[in-house]
């Protein structure tokens, strides 16, 4: 029965996503599209952070790898549908190479390695201007054309992105529901016990990171045709941090957390417009307050409210907190 309600609400949300841009100006459609794209990037990071419990500060760099690969190939005449998988493969391989040394050591080394990696990607994109256009970036990438369905119009591109997002979400759903997902969950709840049951913590974390990176690459592959201009500065550390906070704000380890978090981060500047430059101050302060009181993010806040007004069966006190970061 609960699953029934869940199904209906997912369908309702999907319908909302289909109807939302109708009759809106190009700007709103653009904002909605970038919400979907960042939700994809955040979904990937959620796998790394929320499920495998590792901090990655390189999600924007993986977006860059996806974006530049797609841009270079589509500029040389490839179709987006062929260019994109190549970008994703590149992200997967780089993710493995980067994660391997970092995850060999205990502690939060992945955070530092990815932090430094973000700088490296920026430098390569800027310095190798024979390939990447250097600090001027790349411009004029075509939007994918599917014969009858052209995505040149903002609204069409939105639906194209929505379609890709739904597919990406379904793939993620599959991962989370597979034996893998169970292993992730076990890892998060009790890593030592999981290890003693044959769960290869190191390898599964590495793969989670690499798959999470692929989602970053997919988001990048979509940014390219959306903005039709990419430059190294759009994939800096600040953006990685922004995606990380999306995951945390939405609720790390919850399937729909990234959508919520990305929505908040993309839309908050609009809502807090009246505060002018203070919006980041307010936002970061709110994040800290949230982490003090409800570390499980906005989805956790909702859970608390529901628990308060419609209490369900009594749960043991030590178990009442939600899935949380280690």
């Amino acid at each position, binding site marked *: 029965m609960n699953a029934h309600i869940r199904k209906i609400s997912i369908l309702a949300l999907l319908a909302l996503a289909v109807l939302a841009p109708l009759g809106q100006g190009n700007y709103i459609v653009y904002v909605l599209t970038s919400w979907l794209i960042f939700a994809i990037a955040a979904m990937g990071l959620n796998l790394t952070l929320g499920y495998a419990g590792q901090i990655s500060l390189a999600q924007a760099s993986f977006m860059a790898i996806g974006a530049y690969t797609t841009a270079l190939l589509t500029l040389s005449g490839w179709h987006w549908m062929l260019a994109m998988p190549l970008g994703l493969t590149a992200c997967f391989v780089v993710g493995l190479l980067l994660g391997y040394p970092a995850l060999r050591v205990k502690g*939060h080394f992945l955070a*530092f390695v990815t932090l430094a990696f973000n*700088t490296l990607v920026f430098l390569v994109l800027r310095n190798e201007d024979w390939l990447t256009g250097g600090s001027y970036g790349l411009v004029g990438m075509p939007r994918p054309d599917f014969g009858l369905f052209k995505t040149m119009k903002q609204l069409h591109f939105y639906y194209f992105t929505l379609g890709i997002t739904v597919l990406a979400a379904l793939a993620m759903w599959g991962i989370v529901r597979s034996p893998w997902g169970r292993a992730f969950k076990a890892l998060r709840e009790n890593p030592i016990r999981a290890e003693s049951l044959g769960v290869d913590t190191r390898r599964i974390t590495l793969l989670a990171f690499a798959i999470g990176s692929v989602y970053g690459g997919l988001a990048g592959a979509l940014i390219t045709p959306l903005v039709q201009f990419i430059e190294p500065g759009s994939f800096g550390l600040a953006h990685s941090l922004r995606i990380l*906070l999306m995951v945390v704000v939405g609720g790390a380890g919850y399937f729909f957390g990234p959508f919520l978090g990305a929505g908040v981060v993309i839309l908050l500047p609009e809502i807090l417009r009246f505060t002018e430059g203070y919006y980041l101050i307010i936002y*970061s302060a709110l994040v800290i307050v949230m982490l003090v009181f409800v570390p499980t993010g906005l989805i956790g806040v909702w859970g608390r409210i529901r628990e308060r007004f419609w209490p369900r069966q009594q749960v043991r006190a030590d178990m009442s907190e939600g899935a949380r*970061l*280690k």
Partner: protein
Amino acid sequence: MSQFLQVLLSGLATGSIYALVAIGFTLVWQAAQTVNFAQGEFVMLPAFFVLIGMSVFGMPLWIALIFGLAISIVVLGVLFKKMIVEPILPHGGITLIIATMALGILLKESVKEFYSAEAQPFPSLFPGDPINVFGAVLSLQDVFNLVISLGIVVLLTLFLNRTRTGRCMQATAQNPAVAEILGVNVKRMILYTFLINAALAALASFLITPVYLAKFSNGETLGLIAFIAAIVGGFNQIRGAIAGGLLIGVLDNLTAAYVTAQYRAALPLVLLIVIILVRPQGILGTSEGRTV
């Protein structure tokens, strides 16, 4: 030759600042398992406290420095521990790391909006007279940076090894549970670590800002380099932090001068990956006994 010497000496002077920041970072990591991603901002901020002291309250420089130090210890030491680390640490290390990232943004943006988005001049603490060393030029500032940070390391080591409080702090860092049984006031010892970290950050801030200028974004690269210095040098050693700091300072300058200026910022990453692969405990670190 004089170019090499110049680059080497300047690298040591810069590296000594990295070392100061890295030491505080190491201490806090050991005592409270806190990885502070706002460490760079902790160095950016104290200079602004001094500027506020001078411009708003009209203090003379030396008073303003003491004022800046005191405020830093309260805000970056006590308040940081009480308002952020204490309530969030029970939720787990990752949550705390993310909170310190948000804190970094908060500090940076606050300075930008409430003080200035532009760089500000900062008074020099030492006369700028150049000292000629075999064709290389050092300022008195450089010399003091080096002397002060080495001095701090010596003093800190003496304090940790020779005083009762210092030994209690070490016991706390190694095994809080045992320290507690031995009658050490663990909470107070951890607080001391945060105070020392704040004081070191303030000191580093006062030493570099005359050259780097006071700007809200100054912490961005400094924080990263300090982490990497700490990891490269060896996390569980104060000596490690200073070795890592000096090493990065020198290598960074040598890379810029002789290898590639375009990729100089990649050096810390390369160093980090090499260390992780070859010697994860760091150059001077000892591998930790704890496995479970």
